[in-house]
């Protein structure tokens, strides 16, 4: 099963990078969003505001990235996959690929943010750890939700509507934990928030694994 999932991740990457303009559009999206923030705020003195803004940009750009995960294959390819694969393998590989994509987007957002809006983050490694955990919960939630929204034929419109209220607890924990990392507090004081984020990841991935078989049949 693992080797098939790895193969599927490669397949996803192949489909994604076949259209390099689309992949590039994700990064241009991030840069222009950050630039809009930069021109609106000029400079962000307050670390709390910086942090909140950063996570909102990450949430929107990862929504934008995940949206296409069920539109990459055309109808015939999807039918072929349906006959040859198990739904659990499909959803896990899609979540894994979107996770990598979201991490890459965070990796792209952080330097642009630091360049234009300043970098108040003192404890960068813990901040990165929180980002790794939050990216997992974001990508898994949005992947499952975009599978539901895709049923309506209006995935772009419905994914944020369905996903944002559900993702809010994750976002709040991530902002809280990342804020503490930015302020340079000792990790021992808020490691429980990281555990909560990890638990969210586990719950969301298990739920996706259980629920996706019903969405997959069509």
């Amino acid at each position, binding site marked *: 099963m693992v080797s098939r999932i790895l193969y599927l991740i490669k397949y996803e990457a192949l489909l994604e990078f076949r259209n390099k303009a689309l992949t590039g559009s994700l990064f241009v999206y991030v840069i222009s969003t950050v630039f809009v923030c930069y021109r609106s705020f000029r400079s962000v003195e307050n670390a709390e505001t910086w942090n909140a803004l950063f996570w909102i940009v990450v949430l929107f750009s990862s929504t934008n990235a995940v949206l296409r995960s069920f539109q990459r294959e055309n109808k015939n390819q999807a039918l072929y996959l349906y006959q040859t694969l198990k739904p659990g393998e499909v959803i896990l590989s899609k979540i894994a690929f979107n996770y990598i994509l979201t991490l890459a987007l965070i990796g792209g957002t952080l330097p642009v943010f630091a360049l234009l809006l300043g970098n108040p983050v003192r404890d960068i490694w813990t901040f990165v750890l929180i980002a790794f955990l939050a990216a997992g919960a974001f990508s898994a939630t949005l992947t499952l939700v975009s599978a539901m929204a895709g049923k309506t034929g209006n995935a772009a419109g419905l994914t944020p509507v369905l996903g944002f*209220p559900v993702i809010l*607890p994750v976002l709040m924990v991530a902002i809280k934990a990342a804020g503490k990392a930015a302020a340079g507090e000792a990790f021992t004081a808020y490691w429980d928030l990281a555990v909560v984020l990890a638990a969210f990841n586990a719950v969301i991935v298990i*739920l996706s694994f259980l629920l996706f078989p019903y969405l997959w049949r069509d």
Partner: protein
Amino acid sequence: MRGGFAANWWKFLGVGLLLFAIPMAWLGNVSVQVILHETIRNLYFHVTMWFAMIAVFAGSVFYSIKALRTGNRLHDIRAEQFAQTGMMFGFIGITTGMMWANYTWGAPWVDDPKLNGSAVSLLIYMAYFVLRGSLNDPIRRLRAAGAYNIFAFVMLILLIGLMPRINDSLHPGNGGNPGFGGYDLKNEMKWVFYPSVLGWILIGFWIAGIKSKSAIAKYTLEEEITES
């Protein structure tokens, strides 16, 4: 009522409990505290709405699971009707809470984890109805809406359980505020509060059951018309 008393005793119990609890909520003794004073009586009306909402939403998720497992559309209709009933309790809960907050906190809406949690739960179920509304094919609707209902409910429970631990709440009994703690609440208040919670939950299930029956009747009628 079909099935006689044996199948419907819980409806009588619900009515009986509320016939006891509502007058007692106005007339019974309460523990009068600073700021709260007599507004503590809102405990019987406002807090019970949240318990009823969560219970009815749980009923909706129960039917969503059944619908996914069996593919039976009638369960999907029940899940929708239960979610609508839960929304009704949610709106009443928000309204009673805002009226109360206006007098005790000085504003109808303040930054409080419980308020945000309730706002999110209403947003989630609004999104659920949007999802249902945008799917015309009943089988697709059953699957997508059912899966969303289950997923969103689990996340909602996590949110409700987690939020007050992340931020202190202004609510009585939270963050060192007096209220629902063991010695803040008079024992006799519990004798009104718990029956009231149970009563509203039972009434909620009754309402949702009637709504389900009506929606299913409508559905079968439409099916018969299209078949003939």
